[in-house]
């Protein structure tokens, strides 16, 4: 009997198609995961180049390199490319690679839609990038696309809006696929409360995406009809309200920032226990905290708009609700600390990036709390203080954790060990330069420098120069990561990695029970048992 089954399996277990077409038509979750990750890394460098153009212009007072309009296009496009082209796709890529392997599923639930969702993302980002070459230049009204300013965009406006539609559809399809996979394809032994936290955080993120992307699509469609079809949703002269757009946008925009941070929490909760050699502290409280943060993210949007002139009751409500987010976020930070407490820690590159994430994300959380306090926000709002805040929650948080995830799973994906020395060099250069880059921006904001300006008064010159120096070191340090990835794919250090790769990793996740690298198809039959380390 078993011989028959084996033969049957072999017959179906064909490898990938040959040639380039493999990557175009693939429905394999590992291939699509790789596509997403490679695309995200490429866009990280595109968005990073834009950031360096910004920082080069801000290196000294006076305009040296670009016209103000192009500068505004750069800040706008940098944000859009990083959010929709780099961070979100990178997490979808991780989800594609890891979720089936973490829950004991053979593939994603909807493999064909998976392929479509990736290629639609590429189309959307390329369309967005093409606006750089259009008459009137790329959108320059900030990534928030506030009217009436955004309606002054040249030929690029309808293309940018259509690109947002494509990116939205792609995200929704990705989210549906992930939710369907998690809810339907778990190994029988993998009950919900035994799922790794990365899976949990993505399940919740998936619901966030499905709830918010249509709202954003609706908002930009209203911009489209205001500009081309004579409506006046956002035009006071026609009975509309420009602030209405901001309410709609931030109803999308606030949960959107959690779309980028919840999976980050999941990866951190996956990596820290492995290198502390201890189970994650407070697993169920982590799940509940994630769900609470997701819920709260829907009811705090107007804290982005304290200065638009809301009624007092509105200001107070949004202040109190925003402050509440500190509670579940605090629980998470305390849990990570307790996980490390009395562990037996080692500090390989994934762990270094994860610890830096906990520390630096917490700093971003502190400034978030400061800005939640509405009266003080009347000073902080739209200054470099907020630029520092959200970059702390995105760069040394989301980006650092994506790097950690890369180092953590690369040996599993490729079967080769990465170069630990270069990994650590990459970490230390990044961790130091990211603070040189963003910490002085707190000072600039408090001293009175508004955001989104191409030139500044001379009293801001010194810290801007420091920040720009940090930016260039940080930017070029990331090339080390590319070097490590390419080297690892091509054989790495030559050291043979085991299935577990990391000491006792199989106790923490199903993916470590598979060979390194895993065969093209894995868990064609669900595993009988799942790790129960946390329970």
């Amino acid at each position, binding site marked *: 009997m078993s011989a028959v089954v084996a033969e049957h399996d072999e017959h179906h277990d064909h490898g990938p198609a040959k040639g380039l077409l493999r990557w175009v038509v693939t429905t394999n979750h590992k291939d699509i995961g790789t596509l997403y990750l490679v695309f995200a890394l490429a866009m990280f460098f595109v968005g990073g180049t834009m950031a360096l153009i910004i920082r080069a212009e801000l290196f000294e007072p006076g305009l040296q390199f670009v016209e103000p309009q192009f500068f505004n296009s750069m800040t706008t496009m940098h944000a859009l490319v990083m959010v929709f082209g780099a961070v979100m796709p990178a997490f979808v890529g991780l989800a594609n690679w890891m979720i089936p392997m973490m829950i004991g599923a053979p593939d994603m639930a909807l493999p064909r839609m998976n392929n479509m969702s990736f290629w639609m993302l590429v189309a959307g980002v390329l369309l967005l990038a093409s606006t750089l070459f259009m008459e009137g230049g790329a959108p320059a009204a*900030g990534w928030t696309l506030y009217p009436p300013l955004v309606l002054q965009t040249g030929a690029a406006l309808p293309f940018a809006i259509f690109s947002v539609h494509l990116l939205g559809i792609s995200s929704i399809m990705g989210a549906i696929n992930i939710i369907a996979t998690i809810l339907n394809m778990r190994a029988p032994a993998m009950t919900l409360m035994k799922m790794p936290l990365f899976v949990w955080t993505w399940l919740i993120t998936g619901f966030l995406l499905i709830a918010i992307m249509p709202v954003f699509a609706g908002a930009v469609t209203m911009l489209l009809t205001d500009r081309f079809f004579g409506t006046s949703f956002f035009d006071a002269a026609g009975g509309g309200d420009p602030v209405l757009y901001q309410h709609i946008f931030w109803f999308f925009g606030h949960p959107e920032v959690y779309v980028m941070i919840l999976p980050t929490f999941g990866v951190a909760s996956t990596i820290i226990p492995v290198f502390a050699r201890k189970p994650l502290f407070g697993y169920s*409280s982590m799940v509940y905290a994630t769900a609470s943060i997701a819920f709260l993210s829907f009811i705090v949007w107007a804290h982005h708009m304290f200065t638009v002139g809301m009624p007092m009751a509105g200001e107070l409500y949004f202040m109190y609700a925003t*402050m509440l987010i500190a*509670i579940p976020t605090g629980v998470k930070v305390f849990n990570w*600390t307790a996980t490390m407490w009395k562990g037996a820690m080692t500090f390989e590159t994934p762990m270094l990036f994860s610890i830096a994430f906990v520390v630096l994300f917490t700093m971003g959380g*502190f400034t978030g709390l400061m800005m939640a306090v509405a009266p003080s926000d009347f000073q902080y709002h739209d200054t470099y203080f907020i630029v520092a805040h959200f970059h702390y929650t995105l760069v040394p948080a989301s980006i650092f954790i994506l790097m950690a995830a890369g180092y953590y799973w690369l040996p599993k994906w490729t079967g080769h060990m990465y170069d630990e020395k270069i990994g650590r060099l990459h970490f230390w250069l990044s961790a130091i330069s990211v603070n040189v880059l963003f910490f002085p921006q707190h000072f600039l904001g408090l001293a009175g420098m*508004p955001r*989104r300006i191409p030139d500044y008064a001379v*009293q801001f010159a010194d810290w801007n120069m420091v920040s720009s120096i940090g930016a260039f070191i940080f930017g070029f340090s990331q090339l080390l990561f590319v070097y490590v990835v390419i080297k690892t794919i091509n054989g790495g250090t030559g050291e043979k990695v085991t299935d577990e790769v990391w000491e006792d990793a199989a106790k923490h996740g199903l993916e470590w029970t598979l060979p390194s690298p895993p065969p093209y198809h894995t868990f064609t039959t669900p595993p009988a048992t799942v790790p129960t380390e946390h329970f």
Partner: protein
Amino acid sequence: MKKTKQLFACLCLMAFGLETAQAEYALNLMQGVTRLSHDIYDLHMLILWICVFIGIAVFGTMFYSIYHHRKSKGHVAAQFHESTKVEIIWTIIPTLILVSMAIPATKTMLKMDDVQEADMSIKVTGWQWKWEYDYLDSGVHFFSSLDEASNRARQLNSGIDPRSVPHYLLNVDKPLVIPTKKKIRFLFTAADVIHSWWVPDLGWKKDAIPGFINEAWTSVEKPGTYRGQCTELCGKDHGFMPIVVIAMDEPDYSAWVDEQKTQAKINKSLADKNWSQDDLMAKGETVYVNNCASCHMADGAGMAGTFPAITGSPVVTGAIDAQIDLIYNGKGMMPAFGQMLSEVDFAAVVTYTRNALGNAVGDSVQPSAIKALKASLPEPADEDEDEE
């Protein structure tokens, strides 16, 4: 021991020296010059210290653990992984801290919102890219935009060192003047896109939104000059529309108001005067540099694809009425200058563009003609006020 002491003293001196030599490395929020701005500063410091305290506790614990609980030191991992008691403690304590923050925050918030019983009101209108001030009680009215020295230095590769320009990018041609120790109510609106009016020393910023009116108030204790900027991205020259507020004690302020009223009368008579072509051209050049050159370029060449050239433009070299209409009402990214420019400035810049920058149409327009045109048209900015 002696050596260590010397080294320490040396380091202290160095640190001190650095601080005095480069006072520009500002670190903290400014306290400001109003009672409200002091309240906000205190709130800021309270929360900052709470965050620092929590940070020291959490990071301290973490770094203790990182130092002591490492495998290389032979530490064996404990296996505890749950404690409902601990989870409840670290949920309740932060909640209490948040409540202690929310109480003073709410008090300050209520104070900020109270615009009642103001001594005077100033309407502030944001334009791309200047501010319009309208003293509702005394009738003083003017536009305020980036000063000429900053404007020249801020052009791409201008060759002018910004450090040589006094108050680079934070100086205007005509500052807002307010009396000290009076409660002043500000009304904010905008003519084109959303702007935001921020003077850090007053403690707040408020958005100026087309079609809507926002309110805020201030009461400055000390005479002085306070500078700020637009803080809501409002297009190309968002970084170049500063705010300067001069607070004056009472006799000085009244004198300033009287001076403005006299000046307004003189300006009115200027519009009725018959201007020579040369005078209009001379005036027009200044108006062009301050209002038009940032898009259409100093030489009138424009920017391909975005801003049309003035040189040889079919509008500028065509019928004069059509050009006046375009400048008056704006089009697309071009702001409506009808209300922004005085009759004299308007007539001067029309005349200038038609007869300079490579154009030689030869005709001109008198300020009195623009005045007649203004009288015949409704003022576009007034539509907004109906919404209040």
